[in-house]
């Protein structure tokens, strides 16, 4: 019989011996979450570099979108960062919106003018959300904007 080329190494319990096992008290987790929510970091200046990168990616894509993977990567990367940071700094609306758009971009095989336009409108929407301090879920306007983007993405048909 041929000898297997894979080897299984037993799980180490070293960390359990060092710190114990079990659960962390719910209160400790709540306090940690509070520390996160109480952080007084302003998201707007943090978002600026990614918004600039997104703007550059959109401008470049308008000139030439023949290299589909490169175009989509350059657009998606700053949006990913915005999604991550917005959620961590109490801009749930921006985080949800960018998350939804990322999922839409995942379904795009080849970028076309409409896709680039959606990225551009998203960029402008985030700029406005920051200008108007649309933190949290963005309230009524946030809901309307989210649903509008959702409809746009649902109606999208690739250019032939």
């Amino acid at each position, binding site marked *: 019989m041929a000898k297997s080329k894979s080897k*299984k190494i037993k*799980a180490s319990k070293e960390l359990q011996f060092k*710190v114990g096992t079990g659960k*962390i008290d719910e209160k400790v987790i709540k306090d940690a979450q509070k520390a996160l929510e109480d952080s007084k970091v302003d998201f707007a200046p943090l978002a600026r570099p990614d918004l600039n990168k997104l703007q550059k990616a959109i401008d470049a894509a308008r000139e030439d979108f023949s290299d589909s993977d490169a175009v989509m990567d350059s657009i998606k990367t700053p949006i990913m960062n915005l999604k991550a940071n*917005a959620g961590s700094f109490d801009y749930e609306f921006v985080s949800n919106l960018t998350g939804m758009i990322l999922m839409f971009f995942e379904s795009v095989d080849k970028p076309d003018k409409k896709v680039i336009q959606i990225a551009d409108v998203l960029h402008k929407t985030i700029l406005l959300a920051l200008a108007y301090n649309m933190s949290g879920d963005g309230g009524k306007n946030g809901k309307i904007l989210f649903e509008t983007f959702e409809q746009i993405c649902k109606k999208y048909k690739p250019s032939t």
Partner: protein
Amino acid sequence: MNAPKQKQKDPYSLKSFRVLVADDYPFMADLMTSMIRELGVEHILLANSGAEAKEMVMMFNADPGSPNHIDMVITDWLMPGGDGDELIRWIRDSKKDAIKFLPVVLCSAYTSEEIVTIARDSGANEAMVKPISAKKMADRILHVINHPRPFIKTPNFFGPDRRRRLEKYKGEERRVMKPDEVKETHERL
């Protein structure tokens, strides 16, 4: 039966736990640090790139006898100077046991399915989708401690076993997870 060499401490004393956080966003790194500290971890190291994280891992874990080993790395995926998955591959390729078996949690803003696949294939122990929360962070840290996985070595892969253990079906009870639990699992990611 062999008795454990070391006696287990009281449940969860994360004071002596040493975590390295690798993230190129200083604000995000600070945020993660303060959250992990609130969870009880007193030793937190910061690296702002993959390259810096490698240096720190070498510094603290290269000597097998050192009492100051890093116990876990929490790394961002996209970073200048070496991405998170490159860092994980470097860790898993190390010849030193204190480095190659180091638990790693990969964080990313990317959609769940893709990050889980990348994390699994590069040898991460756990994946975490941003935005982070205290519960997500605690879940990941505790999961790595409570459920250590065996490591698999093949010609093309070295890392934690990518196949999670499945419970056997009992009688007519075909559904192992209830729909709410499936949803919960996805949300956990």
